[in-house]
């Protein structure tokens, strides 16, 4: 039995005048229009943070705004079958790092040299999660805020579950370090190709789940400011 299913992962990274925002999402495989859901939510993350910077919403309303924008972006006929997970990070100058997650996937790496991990998903079995869905009221986001004073250096990876489920426990920060170093060695124009090559030749056997990685590197002391992969 075989069904043609589009890639259900989506991601969006963008640098703004106020900082940078990145999001990745994985549509729930059982939902017919989940590929629309993942694209809607990554766009919604960006719109929510722009609204926050404009002063239209408070910090406490960011995830509610993401949810609202995600639902509004879906045509009504898709809403019953567009569930998705989502992981995001927003580094706002002068404020700090906003992190959030719903469903599975992970945000990991190191902050000021200390390993960091924000991970969702079920402790029971893989792919059993509570995703974001227009049919499910009051979604519960897992969030964290790290103030700017604690952000001398950031090495971050956002990874959907096609990646996160295969990472050895305790090796998340090391993997982030490895990928950031490997991808950033060489010319900027080759970075995405290098990362794509790693994902397409994934080291775990029989691991064909959709995979998305977003890498972010920042050092306060770098004269050129932020770098990202």
């Amino acid at each position, binding site marked *: *039995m*075989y*069904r*043609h*299913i*589009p890639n*259900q992962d989506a991601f969006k990274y963008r640098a703004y005048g106020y900082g940078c925002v990145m999001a990745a999402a994985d549509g*729930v*495989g*059982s939902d017919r*229009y989940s590929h*629309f859901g993942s*694209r*809607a939510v990554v*766009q919604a993350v960006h719109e929510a943070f722009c609204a926050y910077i404009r002063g239209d919403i408070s910090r406490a309303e960011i995830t509610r705004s993401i949810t609202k924008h995600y639902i509004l*972006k*879906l*045509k009504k006929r*898709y809403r019953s079958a567009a569930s998705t997970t989502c992981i995001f990070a927003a580094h706002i100058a002068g404020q700090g790092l906003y992190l959030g997650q719903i469903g599975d996937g992970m945000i990991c790496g190191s902050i000021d040299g200390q390993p960091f991990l924000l991970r969702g998903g*079920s*402790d*029971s*079995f*893989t*792919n*059993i999660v509570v995703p974001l869905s227009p049919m499910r009221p009051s979604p519960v986001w897992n969030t964290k805020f790290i103030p700017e004073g604690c952000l001398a250096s950031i090495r971050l990876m956002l990874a959907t579950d096609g990646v996160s*489920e*295969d*990472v*050895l426990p305790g*090796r998340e920060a*090391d*993997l982030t370090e*490895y990928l950031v170093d490997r991808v950033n060695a060489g010319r900027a124009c080759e970075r995405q190709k290098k990362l794509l090559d*790693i994902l397409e030749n*994934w*080291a*775990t*056997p*029989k*691991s*064909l*789940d*959709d995979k998305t990685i977003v890498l972010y590197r920042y050092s306060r002391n770098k004269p050129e400011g932020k770098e990202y992969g």
Partner: protein
Amino acid sequence: MSEMKDFVYQTARTLPVILLLDTSGSMFENNKIGAMNHAVRDMLTSFKHYSSTVASISVAIITFGGASANVHLPMTAIDELDLSAFQDMEANGMTPMGEAISIAKSIIENKEQIPSRAYRPTVVLVSDGMPNDRWEEPLEEFKHEGRSAKCYRMAMGIRVDRGSDAYNVLKNFTSDEEQVFDASDAAEISKFFRYVTMSTTARIKTANPNLVPSMEEVFAQPQVDSSEIDDDFPF
């Protein structure tokens, strides 16, 4: 120098299948035990021959007969299973189903046997009669507590009348009457295990192996209809 294999698992995710099989004395009648042995071997052979690119299958078999339930086959990756060494089950004694359910639960809750990255297990109960040990409490714990509560359950009654106490036990196990199958002879026993085989292999072909297809979907012809894909971006 580090490589990707230093950071990620070098084994595939598994899709576990756990069989709880009645080997009580009544299974000797009409050679039900022979039909079940044959069907289970066919299923294991099919699993072995099937080449999956998405997940590996692992199987455990727990029998309940005699004076106690036993692990007939511990959780084993199908690639590592030596079919020539697989022993047929024998029928005798009582029906300690509750004990079998408790053993299955202990396997499922053990993350060394079924890690968190495994797909949702399928648990299959096959019986031809009423259990005669304490089964209600183990079954309630299995259905409502811990990781076992998230497993997919199906059951087959061999010559069990619908509406009988034995049938109601099976219905209680699955919580869904549609997942209780009837078998009255060897052919139907075989068909049921073919369904278990095909639904398992169908799961590992899809993008979401946690979705369990119905019997109708499993036995239908595969179809690919790209006209159903709606790529109209909805913004």
